[in-house]
Structure formats: structure tokens, C-alpha cells
């Protein structure tokens, strides 16, 4: 029964990867920004959760009503003050800016919080688990992370497909120049997308800090997994991102069952294999790939 257990644990782990990755996917899909500081922003969320929950003396979940709006605001500020200016100088400038931001965040965190690994106070939820048949134990915390990821992705999908805000976001992602031309105010669209991306990253950071430990350099590892989930799932497809995260998680846990030393290597090999065989990602339709390539050729 070890294999069934490994697959279940892997799927639950994949939910966490998807939760981190959805903001990255959104940022790239709408603004064409590859945010190399995304993982570090998630870690910042974890540190903010640590500060708030120790100051108030409550489990970190209680601080979410403060933390998530703060992260949303930080994301908007990041877009309006920094990335918006970088975007004027072509596609490479935002990559360099977010790379620099990543290094700054990591070093500032080391100065402010030392390099000691930290954990978050997850309250009773962090220790609870239930049995699912023989030999399979599911942690409530892992299940909560997975269900939260599903809820966040469904919520985003609904916002994008059903609201006038979502319509503007999709139109802007399709064709920025024409979006401006038909009267969409692109600045607030970009700012809210960045706000949501950073808020979801911070939420993912809270789960990272409750499930394991984090230090100022954790963001780089987080970024790699998030990035791989986005690419495997197919850029711009939110459900693909969940599937990508699950593929990564299952690979990691199942291979880890055989030999822990090869777990992360297997994940990276899976990523390489998908890039080689289906560079557009597993869940991108052929038409979407053609459209992306067509836009590239036209632009």
C-alpha cells in the first residue's frame, strides 16, 4: 500500500506547488513578466505571518485577514512603482528587475531575521491527521493546503471567466495594444493582477512555513518548483498549473519512496522531458500554441 500512499501524498504536495505557481502563471499570462522574485515574495509572506502571529500570540491562520490584504497592496505597489516602469523598456528589463529584487529580498531578510530556519504556528491543525484505509495517514494540514489551492484556482477561474474585470484581464492578455485602444485602462488591470499574484504567493508562503521550515533563501527553491509547475501544466492554463503541480508532487514522493536522494532530480528530469516532448506544456491546446507562436511571429 506504500505506492497508493505515495501517490496520495504526492497529489497533496502538488496542491502546494500549484498554489505558489498560480500567481506566477497569472503574472506571465497577463503582463508577460517572468517574476523571479515570486518565491521570495512567498517567503516574505511567511515572515510577515511569523511576525504577526508571534506579536498577537495566535496561530498564523488568524492573521490571514490582515496578511492577505497587506500582500495584495504590496503587489499593487510593486507593479505601479517598479514593474510598470521596467515594462516600458522591453521584455528583458522586468526579468532583470525581479532578479535584482529577489537578491535584495533574500539579503534584507538575512539582515533582519538572520539565516536561522523558522516555522509558523499552525495551531491544532498542524498536528491533526486521519486514517484513510490501512497504512495511509492524511495530514489535515496537507489536505487543507490542497483544498485551498483548489479553491483559489476555482475562484480565480470564476473571476476571470464571469466578471467584467476578468474580461478586461483576458482581453489585455490577448492583445495589450488593442486593449488600450478599445478603452481598457490597463494600469488598474495590471495592478490588481499583481496584487492577486502576491496575495496567493503569501498564502502559499504561510503553508510552506506551517508544513516545513523556511529561511531567507527558501524562495529560490520555491521559485523553481513553481516555475516547473507552470511550464509542465501549460502557460496561461490555471487548471493545467494544478495538474503540473500534482505531476511534480507525485513524481517527487513516488521516486522518494524508492530513494530519497533522487526525488528532486526526478522532478527536474520530468520538467526536462516535458519541455523536450511538449514545449507548450501538457495541457495547452494545439490551437493555443499556434496562437502564441503566431503572436510571436507577428510581434
Amino acid at each position, binding site marked *: 500500500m506504500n505506492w497508493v500512499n505515495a501517490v496520495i501524498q504526492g497529489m497533496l504536495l502538488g496542491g502546494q506547488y500549484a498554489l505558489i505557481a498560480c500567481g506566477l502563471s497569472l503574472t506571465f499570462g497577463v503582463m508577460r513578466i517572468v517574476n523571479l522574485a515570486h518565491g521570495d515574495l512567498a517567503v516574505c509572506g511567511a515572515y510577515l505571518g511569523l511576525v504577526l502571529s508571534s506579536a498577537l500570540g495566535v496561530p498564523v491562520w488568524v492573521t490571514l485577514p490582515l496578511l492577505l490584504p497587506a500582500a495584495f497592496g504590496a503587489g499593487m505597489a510593486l507593479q505601479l512603482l517598479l514593474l510598470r516602469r521596467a515594462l516600458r523598456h522591453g521584455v528583458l528589463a522586468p526579468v532583470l528587475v525581479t532578479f535584482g529584487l529577489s537578491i535584495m529580498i533574500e539579503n534584507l531578510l538575512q539582515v533582519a531575521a538572520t539565516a536561522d530556519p523558522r516555522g509558523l504556528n499552525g495551531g491544532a491543525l498542524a498536528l491533526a491527521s486521519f486514517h484513510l484505509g490501512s497504512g495511509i495517514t492524511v495530514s489535515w494540514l496537507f489536505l487543507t493546503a490542497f483544498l485551498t489551492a483548489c479553491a483559489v484556482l476555482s475562484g480565480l477561474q470564476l473571476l476571470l471567466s464571469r466578471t*467584467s474585470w476578468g*474580461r*478586461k484581464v*483576458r*482581453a489585455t*492578455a*490577448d*492583445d495589450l*495594444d*488593442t*486593449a*488600450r*485602444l*478599445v*478603452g*481598457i*485602462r490597463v494600469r488598474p488591470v495590471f495592478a490588481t493582477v499583481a496584487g492577486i499574484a502576491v496575495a496567493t504567493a503569501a498564502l502559499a508562503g504561510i503553508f510552506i512555513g506551517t508544513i516545513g521550515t523556511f529561511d531567507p533563501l527558501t524562495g529560490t527553491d520555491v521559485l523553481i518548483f513553481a516555475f516547473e509547475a507552470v511550464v509542465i501544466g501549460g502557460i496561461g492554463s490555471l487548471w493545467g498549473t494544478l495538474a503540473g503541480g500534482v505531476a511534480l508532487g507525485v513524481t517527487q514522493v513516488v521516486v522518494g519512496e524508492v530513494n530519497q536522494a533522487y526525488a528532486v532530480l526526478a522532478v527536474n528530469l520530468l520538467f526536462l522531458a516535458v519541455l523536450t516532448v511538449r514545449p507548450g506544456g501538457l495541457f495547452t491546446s494545439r490551437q493555443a500554441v499556434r*496562437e502564441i507562436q503566431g503572436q510571436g511571429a507577428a510581434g
Partner: protein
Amino acid sequence: MSGPGAILEVSGLDVFYGDFQALFGVSLSVSRGCATALVGANGAGKTTLLRTIAGAQPAAAGSVRYDGADVTAAPPYRRISRGIALVPEGRRLFPSLTVEENIQVGAAAAASAGWPLERIYDAFPMIARRRRQRASTLSGGEQQAVAIARALAAGPSLLLLDEISLGLAPVVVEGLYETLSGLRSAGATLVIVEQDLRRAMDACDNVVCLLEGRVALAAAAADVTSDQVVAAYFGEGQL
């Protein structure tokens, strides 16, 4: 052609793409309720002029006045809410959005008098049937109709149309121009970029010909022969 009835007055417009100058001191006046044909060879600056009037391209010098107000520095969404809408060259629909969503996006910055969906579907019955389809699955003529509908959703008083007949079958083009004449009777002001000179002169009151970024001819359509326009088109008879 300037006068108190002018809804749009462009004067001394210079527009650059980087170091390349596309328009040189272009002036143009469009009277309320009139249709103006904007003609000229490829690269003469027709699309640039329309984009500058719509606010998609900044002007290095000169001014754009609309309905008595200077809108030279206004972003596109402000011009749209004042009543200027552009149907861009190549239709430029949002491919992943449905037909209806494309039209709804056009209403994002609409003036209070934006066209409701029912009125748009009455005017374009062929796209009403396809409202739930992705815009990228439509035929060229249907896509062009959606592009015009998207502009109408903003309730424009001045409609700028860039090469709406390009690549379409003559019977489809006929239908589109019938729709335009319906818009004119409803009081809209039109500026039409059109390759087909005869169609342009038949459909419009005035004709403006651009040559290498400058106005080579501006006259009432009834006052000029197509030979005179062709001469301006190719720059013959100058100097």
C-alpha cells in the same frame, strides 16, 4: 473646411515612430455628421493618423481638438468616453474572448449613450447567432462586423474605420457599407480609410488624400474627379 460645425479638428500634427517621422504637419477638419474618406498609398500615414486621433499614438507636435476640447494628450479611454472610437486595421479582435465578450469589452469606457447589446444584435443579425462563439472561429466578414460592433458598444459620435473591406468578399463589403450608411443617417460622423477609391468617394462627402505623411488633397468628393485624387495619391502634378 474648418468651421463652427467641425466635430474634429486636427492641426499641424507631427508623429514619429522612434526616429522615423510618419506625419508632417497634418491638418484636417471633419464636420459633424459628415463622412470623410482618407485615402493614400501604403505607408502614407493613414493608419497613423487614425491611431493618433484615437490616442494610441502620441503626437510630437500639433493638436487634436474634439467637440471643442483639446484631447491631444488624453489617453484612449478618455477619448472613447468623449465619443471617439476606432475600428482598427486587421480587426484585432480578442481571439480567446467570445463574440459577446469582445463587444462588452468595447463598452468598458463607453459614453453614457453606449449601444446596448440588443441594439447591436439588431444591426448585425449575423453575429447575434454567434454570440457565444470564440471570435477567432468566425469568418473574416463576421469578424469585421464584430470589430465594428465593439466600437459601437462605446456609443461613438465619431467613428474611425481603418480598412474595413480588406480581404473581404464584395458582397460582404456591400453589407458593411450599408450598415455604415445606416449609422450616418443616425447622425454619426465617420472617417473611413479605404483602398477602393470609387467606393470611398461614393460613400463619403469629403476626401482627404495623404502622400508620404502630408495632406496632398482635401476637397468635397463631388468637387474632384477620381483622376485628380489619383494624381494626389501618387504625388503627380506637384512641383
